[in-house]
């Protein structure tokens, strides 16, 4: 099992809310920020203990590392409207969010300004506001707060039965006797190509950790409950019970391509995984990144300590009669059928079951049991 990133699994939760928060200035944060607070508190973002300060931010932006040289590629930032509250460095503030029920305190070490265009250009490689990650940066307030947080409370939420912390996955992997674990990130129900990738990787390790990202979705995406049920179905019919587990990850997609691939690998390392599957155009959007930029970036991090498992594009070859990729199949493109998510979605939208060489029948039937499987 991988050791936590930076050497120590962070736990910034206060077991009983005994701290008197009366008199603290309160900042109501959005749900994405509240997910960041939870991920800091339960160790998913280890070794972070809070929101980045100025020095760490500069290092992450310029060097892809924290100021202590630990690899870190995506800034975890708390922006706030300076005009509204009279917060000073040295204050303790209360961070709250209604949807997640998060209540956390933060010791404000630093209050500082930042350059949005530099941040966008370095993290996303573009300043264009059409890029969803850049748009988010431009929509942020102009001032950042840096400092450690402590989680006081959160509420029970939908899908909590699938929500394991790094401490819990580590115990789970140990109980299963897994030493090498490969993580697979997903935002969609599984088709045959996904199954091929997962099983190919699983062949060389002890266990598979399926880790869907749950949260804010755009219209036309599969609903979270559909993704989870479809994986349940696949695992029930086509995976050995002792070789695959699934747990969700609540975090927002940044669409930062290569930098985000490193961030995704770090989070899975904190869950205890030793390997991480990186596909074609991982965490990409539009044509902002090359198809294998998210593979190449791993060569910059000899000290990441999680092994990337790179997959190129894959398809079904009618001549081979199996799922192939461009490294193993000599046949012409005319024999290749791509696993088109769009095509599968269209068939399902019309209530049709996709062909069995695209998607398992059991998986398709599970999806079609939902009256409205897509986000409206």
């Amino acid at each position, binding site marked *: 099992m991988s050791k936590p990133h930076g050497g120590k699994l962070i736990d910034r939760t206060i077991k009983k809310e005994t701290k008197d928060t009366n008199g603290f200035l309160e900042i109501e944060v959005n749900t994405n920020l509240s997910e960041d607070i939870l991920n800091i508190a339960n160790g998913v973002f280890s070794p972070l203990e809070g929101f980045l300060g100025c020095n760490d931010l*500069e290092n992450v932006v310029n060097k892809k590392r924290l100021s202590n040289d630990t690899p870190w590629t995506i800034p975890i930032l708390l922006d706030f409207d300076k005009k509204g509250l009279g917060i000073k460095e040295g204050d303790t503030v209360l961070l709250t969010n209604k949807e997640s029920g998060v209540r956390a305190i933060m010791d404000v070490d630093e209050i500082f300004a930042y350059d949005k265009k530099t941040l966008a250009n370095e993290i996303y490689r573009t300043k264009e506001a059409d890029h969803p990650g850049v748009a988010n940066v431009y929509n942020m307030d102009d001032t950042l707060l840096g400092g450690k947080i402590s989680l006081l409370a959160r509420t029970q939420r939908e899908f909590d039965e699938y929500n*394991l912390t790094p401490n819990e996955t580590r115990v789970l992997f140990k109980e299963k006797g897994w030493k090498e674990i490969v993580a697979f990130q997903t935002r969609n129900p599984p088709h045959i190509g996904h199954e091929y990738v997962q099983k190919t990787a699983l062949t060389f390790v002890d266990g598979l950790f399926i880790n869907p990202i749950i949260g804010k979705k755009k219209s036309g995406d599969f609903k979270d409950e559909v993704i989870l049920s479809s994986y349940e179905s696949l695992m029930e019919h086509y995976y050995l019970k002792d070789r695959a587990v699934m747990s969700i990850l609540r975090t927002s997609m940044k669409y930062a391509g290569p930098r985000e691939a490193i961030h995704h690998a770090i989070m899975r390392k904190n869950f205890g995984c030793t390997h991480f599957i990186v596909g074609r155009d991982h965490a990409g959007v539009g044509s902002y990144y090359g198809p294998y930029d998210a593979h190449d970036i791993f060569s910059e991090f000899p000290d990441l300590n999680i092994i990337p498992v790179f997959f190129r594009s894959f398809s079904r070859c009618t001549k081979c009669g199996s799922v192939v990729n461009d490294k193993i199949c000599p046949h012409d493109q005319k024999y290749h059928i791509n696993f088109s998510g769009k095509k599968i979605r269209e068939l399902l939208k019309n209530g049709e079951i996709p062909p069995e060489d695209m998607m398992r029948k059991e998986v398709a039937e599970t999806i079609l049991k939902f009256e409205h499987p897509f986000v409206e």
Partner: protein
Amino acid sequence: MIKEKEDKKFTTISIPTPLAEKIKKRIEGTGFTSLSSYVTYVLREVLSGMDEGEEEAFTKEDEKRVKDRLRALGYID
């Protein structure tokens, strides 16, 4: 963002000249742009395994609490 103070971010180390020459030859045509970038890469690789230390042991109580939850959720028998 404040402009990076490069003088504080780097330090100088000495290595034997023949070794430096050997490294320069080795990195020709690779992605490494300087002797320093290669040495940094190698040192990070060597040190990374040692840096991460021993995992902190869970208390028996914590482990039991986690196992109980995993059992209740059907993750373990």
